[in-house]
């Protein structure tokens, strides 16, 4: 029988890890020093959230594995992150749009989890992570507005990012089997509640940015069951190289 609690934790752990890795790719390449640091800070926050979740997932799994095993020794089809977070950085506008679409979920998800979960460990993780996620959302929302209301160039780039990423926005709030079991059993959230609150946050900013973007269109799915875009393989190849080439290497 599938361990749905494990799957549930892994879904979000993988979201955090893969987005963290994407943001880390900006390190040394940010448009200005201050934003370079901002993005790597967020990257490290997300890595911290991923670590707590992997640590708990490994315990729940009960096979004696560690957080490192889960991060470095699983292949693409074992990863259960949504496809949004594996999308490439693109230009700064694309990174901001992707971050904003994730942050709106991350905040509402943790908030709801703290309120309804009957799992003490998940509540503790949500409590610690929510404060970080709220700052991330503040950061990405403000950048959405700056780019959306900035110059014609910045608005065009943000619109291009919306065209590319909006079809990936909803996967995170479409329940997987693990999500359904989690909500029924009581350790997880009802994604409909999260979606309602999240959509509101997104719509406000989209409107203020005067973007032509809708949450009602076609939605890609599959990430939560291990079907990914071509991009994830490249992320893992880079991220996992050392442990794959030199198994058990420590430094």
């Amino acid at each position: 029988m599938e361990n749905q609690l494990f799957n549930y934790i892994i879904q979000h752990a993988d979201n955090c890890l893969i987005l963290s890795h994407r943001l880390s790719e900006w390190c040394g390449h940010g448009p200005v020093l201050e934003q370079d640091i901002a993005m790597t800070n967020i990257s490290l926050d997300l890595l911290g959230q991923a670590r707590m979740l992997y640590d708990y997932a490994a315990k729940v799994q009960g096979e004696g594995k560690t957080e490192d095993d889960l991060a470095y020794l699983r292949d693409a089809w074992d990863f259960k992150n949504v496809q949004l977070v594996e999308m490439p950085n693109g230009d700064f506008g694309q990174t901001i749009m992707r971050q904003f679409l994730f942050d709106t979920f991350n905040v509402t998800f943790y908030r709801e989890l703290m309120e309804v979960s009957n799992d003490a460990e998940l509540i503790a993780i949500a409590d610690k992570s929510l404060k970080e996620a709220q700052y991330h959302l503040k950061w990405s929302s403000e950048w959405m507005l700056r780019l959306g209301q900035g110059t014609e160039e910045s608005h065009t780039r943000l619109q291009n990012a919306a065209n590319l990423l909006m079809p990936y926005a909803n996967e995170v709030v479409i329940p997987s089997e693990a999500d359904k079991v989690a909500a029924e059993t009581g350790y997880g959230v009802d994604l409909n509640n999260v979606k309602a609150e999240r959509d509101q946050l997104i719509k406000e900013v989209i409107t203020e940015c005067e973007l032509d973007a809708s949450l009602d269109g076609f939605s890609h799915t599959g990430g939560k069951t291990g079907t990914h875009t071509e991009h994830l393989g490249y992320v893992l190849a880079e991220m996992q190289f050392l442990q794959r080439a030199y198994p058990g290497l420590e430094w």
Partner: protein
Amino acid sequence: MKKWPLWEVFVRSKAGINHKHVGSLRAADAEMALNNARDVYTRRNEGVSIWVVESKDIVASDPDIADSFYEPAASKVYRHPTFYDLPDEVKHM
């Protein structure tokens, strides 16, 4: 982004302590300056409060008139309260 103005950052390390100048950064607006200051200057737990002010809004004394500005104070030892005998019980003076 070369046109982004320069901001000076002041951080209070804990409640009750003064804000102290810690450095400067570039940002397009006040809100971004605060965020940047938070990310650049308080990531290792350095502070509980941040002030930012545009560098152009700071009025500084002119180094060329330092002689007339500061020299006169140098010879006024009587302005320092060092001539009082303090009882041992008095601390923090």
